[in-house]
């Protein structure tokens, strides 16, 4: 599943920076993601990895730099941000399901109001999308009636139903009880075999080792290392990365 080298990037960050007041949390990041690639971003808390991810669909506005997506600079004035965002799925640490809607309507909402699909068609597609994450029979359930793992899978189904070109995952398993993590990672694994392009910020080192095409290590707002998991997790990796990985795996 390793993408051919030299493929045209789907998403490319160039010299990206972000400051909150006086503190600069992302300090010049260059990163390219090619189609069908699974890029894992790891790093200590406060390293700027979540901010970096959230800039990719402009939930955070970059202070400087460029973001190219499907050949378009999405920071250019006049960019139709809603049109860009429907092509970029996003999955959050705290799921962010709409509590007043059942699982099916959570998934169908954007199908109806962004893609303008007829209600029946959107509902059918929503149930189909839920089925893919193993929740085809829970469409009528409200988020509060679902476990954390199920909620996160509904959130993934909600992102996938729009048929995005890439899905961004912001610590998708951090809020889950340990026994529920596996079900979410299983969905990620399936997406990878289906060829979905993904950028994942996470502390799941074991998963990154086995499933990622590339691992990016961030610290203090910069990328310190960027390479295949064998390199990043190998014995030859820089001391700082080995320390970090050890501290996460033995917490």
């Amino acid at each position, binding site marked *: 599943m390793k993408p051919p080298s030299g493929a045209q990037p789907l998403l490319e960050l160039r010299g990206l920076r972000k400051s909150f007041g006086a503190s600069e949390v992302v300090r010049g990041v260059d990163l390219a993601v090619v189609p069908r690639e699974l890029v894992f971003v790891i790093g200590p808390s406060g390293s700027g990895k979540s901010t970096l991810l959230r800039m990719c*669909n402009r*939930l955070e506005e970059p202070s400087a730099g460029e973001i190219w997506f499907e050949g378009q600079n999405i920071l250019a004035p006049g960019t139709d941000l*809603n*049109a860009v*965002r*429907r092509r*970029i*799925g*996003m999955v*959050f640490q*705290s799921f*962010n*399901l*709409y*509590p*007043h809607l059942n699982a099916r309507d959570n998934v169908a*909402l*954007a199908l109806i*109001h*962004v893609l303008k699909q007829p209600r029946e068609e959107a509902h059918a597609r929503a149930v189909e999308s839920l089925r893919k994450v193993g929740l085809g029979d829970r469409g009528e359930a409200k988020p*509060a009636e679902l476990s954390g793992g199920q909620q996160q899978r509904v*959130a993934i189904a*909600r*992102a996938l139903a*729009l048929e995005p070109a890439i899905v961004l995952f912001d610590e998708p398993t951090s809020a889950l009880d340990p026994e529920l993590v596996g079900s979410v990672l299983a969905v990620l694994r399936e997406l990878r075999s289906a060829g979905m392009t993904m950028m994942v910020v996470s502390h799941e080192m074991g998963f990154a080792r086995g499933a990622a095409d590339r691992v990016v290590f961030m610290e203090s707002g910069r990328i310190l290392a960027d390479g295949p998991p064998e390199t990043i997790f190998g014995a030859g990796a820089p001391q700082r990365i080995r320390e970090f990985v050890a501290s996460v795996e033995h917490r």
Partner: protein
Amino acid sequence: MQGLIDTFFNIAVMAQYLPKVLEGMVITVLLAIAVVLTGLALGFVLAVVRSAGLRVVNVLIVLFADVFRAVPPLVILITIYFALPTVGLRFTGFESAWIGLSLVLAAFAEEVIWAGILSVPRGQWEAARSSGLGFAQAMRLVILPQALRLTIAPLTSRAIVITKNTALASVVAVGEILYQAQAAYSFSYNPSPLTLGAIAYLVLFIPLVWLGRWVETRFAWKR
């Protein structure tokens, strides 16, 4: 004892002025409905506009809300009815009361609905906007359904308060309950019409207070 009954519960006087007080009840109800509809609608619009985050507009909205929550409603009514004509704005008593009380209710409703919108977690906005929904769509489909549920109880109690303030309209010559009762009192030299007025208010507002209590238990902080 007989004196007390003749003074406050004089059946003959009450019977004579009952039609006038009933007339007043109709006016009170009409004014109350007009004020609640206008005030809630205006407050809703202001809260939604405020959430768009336009600095200058928001300063004006906050100023409006603060002024109309600070000034006594009676002062506002008198200003509209007696002072605005000097600058060429002339309103009938009913219009003055309608406008004045609506503005007061709108000021409170705006604050309540704004607080409701703020109470919806940021992640809800982020989820909605990142799926390609625009600001107005996210507001209408995701934020408001959650925010309004929290505001139902406080808005109901606010609406009841403002409805009782329709009695202030008697000052600007609106023929509502208190005005009719006072007029009857001065014609008859007997306070029984005032008793009748009090009964009329009880008949109208006790059910509303009960409704408010029911709404509060039904919607209070349940998600």
